[in-house]
């Protein structure tokens, strides 16, 4: 495995990001993830070769086609009531529910 451009991601960084993402990593997983992230980020670092000054970021395909709400109208649906999926069918999928609400373990640890 090639060395990364910066070797930037430490084990602490990986733990921090895992916490942001609500992921638990085992002691075995942690160094492997750090290794993989560094390898991938090393490859991604190639993007910095490109001068992108003044290039508009592209978030959606419509932007490159010039299909903006200003030229082609909004695609939002009309703000009106319409039927939705049956509540009982939705609640039946929950791991724990009283039929009206989702039940979860206690929120505040004491």
């Amino acid at each position, binding site marked *: 495995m090639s060395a990364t451009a910066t070797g930037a991601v430490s084990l602490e960084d990986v733990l921090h990001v895992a916490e942001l993402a609500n992921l638990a990593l085992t002691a075995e997983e942690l160094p492997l993830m750090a290794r993989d992230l560094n390898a991938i980020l090393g490859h991604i670092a190639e993007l910095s070769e490109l001068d992108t000054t003044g290039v508009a970021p592209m978030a959606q395909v419509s932007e490159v*086609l010039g299909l903006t709400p200003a030229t082609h109208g909004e695609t939002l649906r009309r703000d009106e009531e319409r039927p939705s999926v049956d509540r009982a069918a939705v609640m039946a999928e929950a791991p724990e529910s009283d039929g009206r609400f989702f039940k979860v373990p206690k929120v505040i640890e004491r």
Partner: protein
Amino acid sequence: MQAPYSELETLSLTAARDRVAAGTLSAAALAEQHYERIAAIDPAANDGINSYLALTKERALAQAAKVDADAKAGNPLGPLAGVPIGVKDVLAMRGAPATAGSKILQGYHPPYDATVVTKLEAAGAVLLGKLNCDEFAMGSSNENSAYGPVKNPRAMDRVPGGSSGGSAAAVAAGLCVASLGTDTGGSIRQPAAFCDVVGVLPTYGRVSRFGLIAFASSLDRVGPFTRSVADAATMLEVLSGADALDATSSAEPVAKYSAELAKPVAGLKIGVPEEYFGEGLDPEIRAAIEKSLDGLREAGCVIEKVSLPHTKYAVPTYYVIATAEASSNLSRFDGVRFGLRSEAAKTLSSMYRDSRDEGFGPEVKRRILLGTYALSAGYYDAYYRKAQQVRMLLAKDFLAAFAKVDAIVCPVTPTPPWKLGEKTADPMLMYLEDIYSVAASLAGICGMSVPCGHTAAGLPIGVQVLGAHFHEATMLRVGAAIESRQNGAGQ
């Protein structure tokens, strides 16, 4: 392999529908034949292909009975009447499992149908079941499924490609006549190439995504796998069009793709991007693509060089944008509303963490971590914003090319299908396999993979045809021209 109904391997969509319409074969019997074949060669327990994760037999046979009754009564039949079709497990079918290849959605039964499912059934299709895939459609070999890898029916020790590996393998093995897959960075085109079938990536917005379990929303698309370009045109005609339930679906009119196929390709300009024929391309694949280009030249197409200068940046750009969007989309899997919840947790925050830890596999975790990192404070501009800017440059490369040519022809993959387990140890090695597919995904243009021959070892090779936004008709015509030369060559 001794398996019943081997003629199903080559049955075309048109032939299947015609027999059902003429009453020479009932839709019910056709569905039953497929289920018998599935039982014989698909179950993982018997070292089978492992393409189906769930069978929806009751629903399929009820639909088949309805089609048969309509055929008998002389009622008008849809363009897919009685045609057995499989659905990738990232798409919702009401009441059927939808795992997305993940443990975290074990036991989940969506309470609604995806729009594409509704459209297929309205056209008379008989939906046989849910097809295996890489977990949350993340992977290039189908080895990231929590339910075991799919085998390539053309070479059982090799991968079928991914992430729609089950969808490609089922069509190749005669376990459905056509199937639905999804493509975020190559997940339809690459498995189509690996399994010797046709796979179409429609233009972004062409086909509704309502009912698709999202991976990367600015990239995800739904498209068909079939055994011929003509069948793909029929499928695309049924699937395309605006949907009030998907605000990203386009109101652009849908062409009569199957009728468009009859138009000759003579005079069409075909672009060949030099960046797609560089170092790393397997020589046998290069030779097969060049043969396809010779065929197009003989059919009267004008072949010219085009340049897509930012191609080498497509893979890093893709892996920033796709993982960033995935980290956001996959935050909904938290053990509260559906799927798996860890039993051990005593508090809400540990319940989130433990459920996700137990439910997600290593590749999904890796991508969530990478995406979260790219979006985190201090790194957003350097990674995510930068990648969006390069995405614009990649998209403009294609706009400039399509100002000069009608379609682009290039390889789908740098290598033929590799052996199961061969590339699982190094994620970057696997990502680099996407080099010829991700740029079209980022640009939002349409593309397809068409079988164009085999290596000396007998492994399938696919050729990629790319079309400008909403120019599926032209792309399909070029694909059909390649296909007819290929069939004419009698390989």
